[in-house]
């Protein structure tokens, strides 16, 4: 039962990664690509975390997986913000 739930979560996470990758390759500009990519980073990795945590041998492993997800969440949000900012800067006409 736990095994099945774990596999479902991992599979759902992989769907987000595939969709995010497709979006990264197919979308026309930086902002829409970021939109696709961050779904994989945030939700996709979160689903992977839930799936793997259900299989974890101990609480300590599950908590470490959670910490990995949280760190990636904060880091990728910031990176996305920075890339979007740079993309907007590049679009705007140069200053004085």
């Amino acid at each position, binding site marked *: 039962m736990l095994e099945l739930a774990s596999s479902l979560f991992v599979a759902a996470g992989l769907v987000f990664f595939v969709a995010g990758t497709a979006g990264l390759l197919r979308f026309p500009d930086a902002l829409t690509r970021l939109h696709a990519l961050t779904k994989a980073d945030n939700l996709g990795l979160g689903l992977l975390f839930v799936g793997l945590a259900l299989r974890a041998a101990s609480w300590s492993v599950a908590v470490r997986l959670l910490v990995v997800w949280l760190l990636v969440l*904060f*880091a990728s*949000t*910031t990176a996305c*913000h*920075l890339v979007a*900012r740079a993309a907007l800067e590049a679009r705007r006409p140069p*200053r004085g």
Partner: protein
Amino acid sequence: MGELEALDLLLGLALVALAWRLLAAPDLFEGIVLFVTFGLLLSFAWVRLGAPDVALAEAAIGAGLTGALLLDARGAMPGASVEGPARLRWPVAVLAAATGGVLVAAVLTLPAAPAGLEGAVAARLEESGVAHPVTAVLLNFRGYDTLLELGVLWLAWLAVAAAGPRPDPRPELRPDLRAEAPTGPVLAALVSQLVPLLILVGAYLLWAGAHAPGGAFQAGAILAGGGVLLRLSGVPLPEAARAAPVVGLGFALFLGVGLAQAAAGRRFLELLPAQAHDLLVLVEVAATVSIAAVLAALFAGRRSVS
């Protein structure tokens, strides 16, 4: 073929493909991004080869710090790029193919049962002062190598410090527009949370080195990474030359420990098993501080604009 073999095969092919792409990239920025990707995949390959120490070093130094250094250098020379796509140069290609052939032949003729020094290290691990074989080799059995590496890092810092503070690449801009990194409040907020965590991780890796993968180089690289993040978020690092008091610490202390053994009638760097643990911890702490200082100094701030 099992799943893991398939994964290894994919990993190997991806590494070769990435290496080709990054060498052939017409744009420097693209090449650097691919180089960082290559480093991350390479560290994954080290994990698959059962060498987590090397994987940690590759991810932190090879991909992380070197990648940041390359991006930094590219940013300091606006407009720089490679001229056209990479061309095939026949003498270089022949030389590279010959070297590659020799390497492949060497791998193919390796004995089935590796005749490494694993057994010899395991047999004397007790006397090394640490419980992790990699650290035992790096700091005790082959202490020479690490001592000289610390010396090389110190020399690298000397060169950076001698070059002086970096000139401002765009002196024509007004000072307020010349701000080092107009990255905004989000990065600054993240960095303020992340840097204490990096210090904790660095300290953990240093402590773990005695009995698990980790050690001075990995810890120093993580700490230096914190310094780079600080600079990117607008906190200026002091000039490279101001790191002078700490950059030579690791080298000097290790050398001193080695010479003290010679003075006591033993061979240079020959540690008594009873004292080895304390001496190695001392050397590791000093080396971590020096490594972090040298690596961070490579990113040191430019002369403050008045």
